[in-house]
């Protein structure tokens, strides 16, 4: 598209959208519908009904557990799709394309960087597990912890050449690890169905509820990290 035409379109769209947004309630006003309807209900009863002091976690894992289940399925499906595309690339690449040495050999990493990454990795992993385990009380949760853990794995893969693909467990185990988030959600959802009669519902017993939340957070976190490193590997190898 010609850039002057795009600029005209941007100006028209911008004027329309700015006219729309300045008629919204002022950002930060406590009287806005975003603060008075569902949110007020969450603040009122979120701790008892949602079972988590962190309301974001209560919304994610309890009030809107079905949405979060869909979210976990989406990121798992993305990994499956990326693996399928990468496999198609490896299988049917046009003849005459061979990888040059520059592509297959990795650049030499400074020993200092590799040492620092290896030194910091256990601490990053500990922090990630902490974020997962305390996600229902403090800021954090499964997705955040999974992102931290996945970033650590990608750092290791980039700078310390670990985990080596061959040593990372056999493919079947890896597949189950990547599906941890989906499986944890299905299992906890069925457990809720058995205990309360509603899918994804949580019993009122605080201890059981906390245990189910932690199981979900750990499942989402570990599964998310496995999916992230899987996406990285598929893109790097493909």
């Amino acid at each position, binding site marked *: 598209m010609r850039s002057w035409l*795009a*600029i005209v379109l*941007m100006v028209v769209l911008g004027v329309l959208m700015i006219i729309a947004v300045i008629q919204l309630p002022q950002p930060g006003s406590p009287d806005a519908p975003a603060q008075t309807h569902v949110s007020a209900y969450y603040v009122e009863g979120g701790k008892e009904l949602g079972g988590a002091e962190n309301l974001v976690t209560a*919304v994610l894992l309890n009030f809107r557990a079905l949405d979060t289940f869909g979210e976990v399925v989406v990121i798992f499906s993305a990994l499956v799709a*990326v693996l399928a595309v990468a496999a198609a690339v490896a299988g049917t690449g*046009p003849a005459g394309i061979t990888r040059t040495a520059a592509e297959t050999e990795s650049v030499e990493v400074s020993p200092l960087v590799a040492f620092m990454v290896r030194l910091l990795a256990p601490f990053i992993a500990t922090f990630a597990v902490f974020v997962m385990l305390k996600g229902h009380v403090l800021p954090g949760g499964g997705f955040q912890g999974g992102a931290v853990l996945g970033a650590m794995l990608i750092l290791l893969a980039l700078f310390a050449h670990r985990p080596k693909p061959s040593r990372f467990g056999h493919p079947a185990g890896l597949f189950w690890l990547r599906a941890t988030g989906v499986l944890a959600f299905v299992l906890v959802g069925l457990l809720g169905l058995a205990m309360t009669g509603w899918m994804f519902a949580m019993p009122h017993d605080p201890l059981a509820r906390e245990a189910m939340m932690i199981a979900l957070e750990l499942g989402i976190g570990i599964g998310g990290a496995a999916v992230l490193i899987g996406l990285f590997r598929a893109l790097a190898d493909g």
Partner: protein
Amino acid sequence: MDNLITHIDYIAAVVLFLIGLYIMLVRQNLLKKLLGLNIMETAVFAFIVTTGMVHDGSPPLLAADASGPFASALPHALVLTGIVVAVSITALALALIIRIQREYGTIELQELLNHSASGQSHSGVRQ
């Protein structure tokens, strides 16, 4: 006109959204289009999070000694979902871009269009 000042957070999100849309429309490189899409997604997330903001609010952590007003928890949870979906879209798009590069030797949109117009089989030239 006062609203232009008080709603500056929303307007910033609109401007960011338009920057991303402009990049998606004008740039011919598929990778740059993907970056534009990511900028648009960021703008939408910023907009939704802003709706959950409250003046002098605290994070929605209902510890025993916490006192309100609390920021709305729902936009945060929705944006968390949105970020995960955005990551999934980015990863799949990157995989498809790699595949296009392998297949046609280019990720410039105009060259790809010329390629399909001329109807020749893929040359397999890498750039």
